[in-house]
């Protein structure tokens, strides 16, 4: 039986219950954040108090899993203490790594907590070997989460030129913008994932039934209208349905989710070390189902068995999945 290289399966958790579900379903690592603007999923009712994180780390470590703490927003001028405090707390609680994007915060973590492993967040949008080498050499970054805009061959080319690990998204919400630099949410709502930890915040989202259609709005902007029985969209600007000249449709991006399960062999051949599942904002039911499915897929590939067919479309935005940029057919 083949015994191929097994990648690390990095899974999301927005709550302590979701963390336990991820561990129990076979996650190698779980990433999560604090209940504030220091992480890019600063949603209502979500995330961890320091006490909850301590308990979560204890639960994960007792079962051989690791906990990575996302502190991946950019600190506000005059308020860096909040971000520094988050790094200090993660280190004190025994987190296995912090996931950072802000250069100042990377420097703080490297200087104050050199023993704490540093990963580069996708929010840093490091999309070429030169940028990655800089983060690796300047701040001792051990792993880079690659942006979701690269093809498999581009990922392979990057891995040939760098010495640190790479992690890629394999399932979940698909952002094809230059992450950390996208201002669409700021334009519509004044809040962004980069500074506030929220893209298209729920506080600005409204749904209404109008004339048999479900109308979704973000702030003052109508994002989409869908007839009965069609999948409901979440009104992010990049996935809105707009009229441009004679064209009416999803101008930037379709409301679909990433599913790269079938690309596991190619991504491993490209030198990827870790597979990341998106969805800290999702329920423990989603976590359980998606982690179980990818655990099976990764283990099947490691044993030389065919990867089981995907069954996760029902969990996806738009009820549709795509291989995203990994199989890019557009420019």
């Amino acid at each position, binding site marked *: 039986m083949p015994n191929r290289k097994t990648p690390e399966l990095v899974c999301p958790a927005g709550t302590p219950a979701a963390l336990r*579900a991820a561990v129990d379903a076979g996650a190698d690592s779980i990433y999560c954040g604090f209940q504030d603007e220091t992480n890019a999923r600063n949603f209502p009712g*979500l995330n961890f108090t320091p006490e909850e994180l301590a308990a979560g780390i204890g639960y994960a470590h007792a079962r051989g899993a690791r906990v990575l703490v996302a502190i991946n927003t950019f600190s506000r001028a005059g308020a860096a203490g909040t971000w520094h405090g988050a790094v200090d707390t993660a280190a004190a609680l025994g987190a296995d790594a912090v996931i950072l994007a802000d250069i100042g915060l990377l420097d703080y973590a490297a200087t104050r907590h050199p023993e704490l492993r540093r990963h580069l967040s996708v929010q840093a949008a490091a999309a070429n070997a030169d940028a990655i080498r800089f983060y690796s050499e300047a701040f001792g970054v051990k792993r880079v989460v690659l942006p979701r805009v690269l093809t498999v061959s581009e990922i392979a080319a990057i891995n040939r030129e760098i010495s640190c690990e790479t992690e890629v998204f394999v399932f979940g919400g698909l952002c094809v913008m230059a992450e950390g630099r996208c201002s669409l949410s700021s334009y519509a709502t004044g809040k962004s994932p980069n500074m506030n930890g929220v893209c298209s915040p729920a506080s600005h989202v409204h749904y209404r039934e109008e004339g048999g259609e479900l109308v979704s709005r973000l702030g003052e902007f109508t994002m989409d209208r869908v007839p009965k029985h069609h999948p409901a969209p979440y009104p992010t600007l990049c996935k809105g349905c707009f009229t441009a000249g004679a064209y009416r449709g999803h101008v930037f991006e379709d409301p679909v989710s990433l599913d790269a399960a079938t690309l596991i062999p190619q991504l491993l051949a490209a030198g990827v070390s870790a597979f990341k599942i998106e969805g800290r904002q999702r329920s*423990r*039911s989603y976590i359980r189902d998606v982690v179980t499915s990818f655990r099976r897929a990764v283990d099947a590939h490691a044993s030389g068995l065919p990867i089981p067919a995907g069954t996760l479309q029902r969990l*996806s935005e*738009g009820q549709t999945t795509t291989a995203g940029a990994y199989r890019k057919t557009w420019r």
Partner: protein
Amino acid sequence: MSDAPAFPAVPVMLRLFLTPLPLPLLGLVLQRLAESVARRRPQLFARLGAHGGKAFLIDPTDVPFVFRLSPRSDGPTIEPLRRRDQGAWDARIAGPLGALLAMVHGEVDGDALFFSRDIVIEGDTEAVLALRNALDDAELDLLAEAAAVLGPAGDRMESLARRLTPLASRLTGLALTRRDGS
């Protein structure tokens, strides 16, 4: 296009049984349940934060009444109401009872239910998210919570009910208890 609804409506016989239920009596039972949950699970209410002061209309579209819930940490209230008397609310969550119970018991994902149009949300989206996340983290089992209201006698009731729920769930199509081990 979505397939046929994943959550069939509650059986007609059950709906006929529920229709004449005296709402004040049902309200008393539910209020005791809400107060017991607040005592047993303060972290659920802490997770709601300021959204706990809002009024949520829980609308199981296939039963003859709705519930107005105010999950305040210092005194939650829940009132069953006829649909025509629902009054004011900040956020409304509507869908088949089966979908709502499955979400509370962690059987299904709330976002997926929304994407598939099995549930509808209106009003304060942020409050709905907070409630969904707080409930999901609480890992509620409504049968266990109901038994807790009865005190020591609840253990025997729960034990008996757990033997009957698999059959009742099969007959009604409802997730009457939490089945995941997460």
